[in-house]
């Protein structure tokens, strides 16, 4: 990849966005026939599918919990989703991402309602352009709602980063690779609670606070699109 001279010119990013602007976002609920719930998310060049199965009987049975359902998440990248073919199957990165996604979704689910069962969430990254874990969370939470699983709220997620000392929302692959910092964040919007927070790079205290602000604002926008996707699918009219 040719390194561009500057990632931000006259306050605008390479793709013409302002620092606090999301990429184009499209969310569709209920896109798969066999899954109990599903959703498709396009965020910029990212294409992500999420499917939910369950609550269903937990196999292997020794993983059953007598007092609660278990949430299982599996984040998987298609081999053709990235520049160099990704070897199929879980690697250390996807194992970790699956774990943090599960922990991002679990706080909104009433798992105690379904003892001994499992809720499976499968997230497939079909095309990747930075921010796949957060796009995956956005898709998964719509898919969980589509499956009719009782939830306190949706979960909305976005990545914030630092590019040439500017705090920016929703990094592209180029910005992620050439910028200094990536901070994915997931929020329960109505209660303003953080269920995923990761960061790598460099942030001062002040930059960290501004990044949090921007993350909360970005998630609020995503939340609206998620709700709209569910309204469209289930025909709820706007008041």
């Amino acid at each position: 990849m040719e390194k561009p001279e500057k990632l931000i010119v006259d306050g605008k990013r390479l793709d013409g966005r302002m620092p606090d602007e999301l990429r184009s976002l499209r969310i569709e609920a209920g896109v798969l026939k066999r899954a109990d719930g599903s959703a498709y998310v396009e965020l910029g060049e990212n294409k992500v599918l999420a499917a939910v199965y369950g609550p269903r009987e937990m196999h292997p049975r020794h993983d059953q919990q007598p007092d609660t359902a278990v949430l299982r998440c599996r984040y998987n990248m298609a081999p053709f989703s990235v520049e160099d073919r990704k070897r199929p199957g879980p690697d250390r990165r996807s194992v970790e991402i699956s774990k943090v996604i599960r922990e991002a979704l679990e706080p909104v689910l009433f798992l105690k309602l379904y003892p001994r069962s499992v809720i499976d969430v499968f997230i497939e990254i079909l095309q990747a352009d930075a921010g796949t874990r957060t796009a995956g969370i956005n898709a998964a939470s719509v898919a969980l709602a589509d499956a009719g699983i009782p939830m306190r709220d949706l979960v909305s997620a976005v990545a914030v980063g630092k590019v040439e000392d500017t705090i920016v929302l929703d990094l592209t692959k180029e910005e992620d690779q050439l910028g200094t910092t990536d901070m994915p964040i997931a929020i329960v919007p109505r209660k303003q609670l953080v269920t995923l927070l990761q960061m790598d790079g460099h942030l001062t205290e002040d930059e960290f606070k501004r990044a949090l602000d921007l993350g909360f604002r970005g998630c609020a926008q995503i939340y609206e699109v998620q709700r709209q996707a569910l309204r469209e699918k289930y025909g709820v009219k706007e008041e």
Partner: protein
Amino acid sequence: MYGIVSSVKRDYIVDLAKHGKRVDGRGFDQFRDVSVRTDVIKSANGSAEVKIGNTRVLVGVKIQHAEPFPDMPESGVLMVNAELRPLASPSFELGPPGEGAVELARVVDRGIRESDAIALDKLGIKSGEDVWAVFIDIHVLDHDGNLIDASALGATAALLNIKPPEDEAWTLQEFPIQKRPVAVTVSRINDRLMVDPCLDEEDVADARLTITTVEDGSICAMQKGGAGYLSREQIEEAYHLARTKAEELRERLR
């Protein structure tokens, strides 16, 4: 890494937290006794054993020749691996690393990598063919909670303990360490934040946030864990706790 706790114990710990207390009598901002011993393994280039209370972690660093990554032909390679051996806890099992071990290794890795603790650009030997690889292996010996902080402290201590390999390709005066990242994990129990959770606290905690900072207090890595949430105010409070505590822990690296 999460264990099962009886509801009696859970209620006890949660109730204590409500009243500003902890099972072992510590304050919320107080670590257990921390000890760092370096140079404990002769066969490693650098090593450290960290004890935080009963938690014991051994970190060894090996420096070896390796092939560089194609996109970074002159840069050294950093690899962090963690082993949760069954000798360290009844909840650890034999077999390939589970998500707990993977997360532990990757959180320690990010702290070192993202702070540029090691000047990897100085570890090239022959462009595109040969570079130095720094392998940091975390061996958990006794798990009584807070493995992340113990492992991260051990990794930084072991890096500071490195004696360069006796190899004619090694031309640097000393191992190029430029930052001292320190991770501090803050746990939330019943809306109270506390540092250095012991195992029982870890098992009942709703959520944790690990914040890795360097000398000037800036953040180089973060990781939230656990199946709960944190409020914005709690995150900022956690940062201040982590920063203050990291300064104290960094004193142990001298």
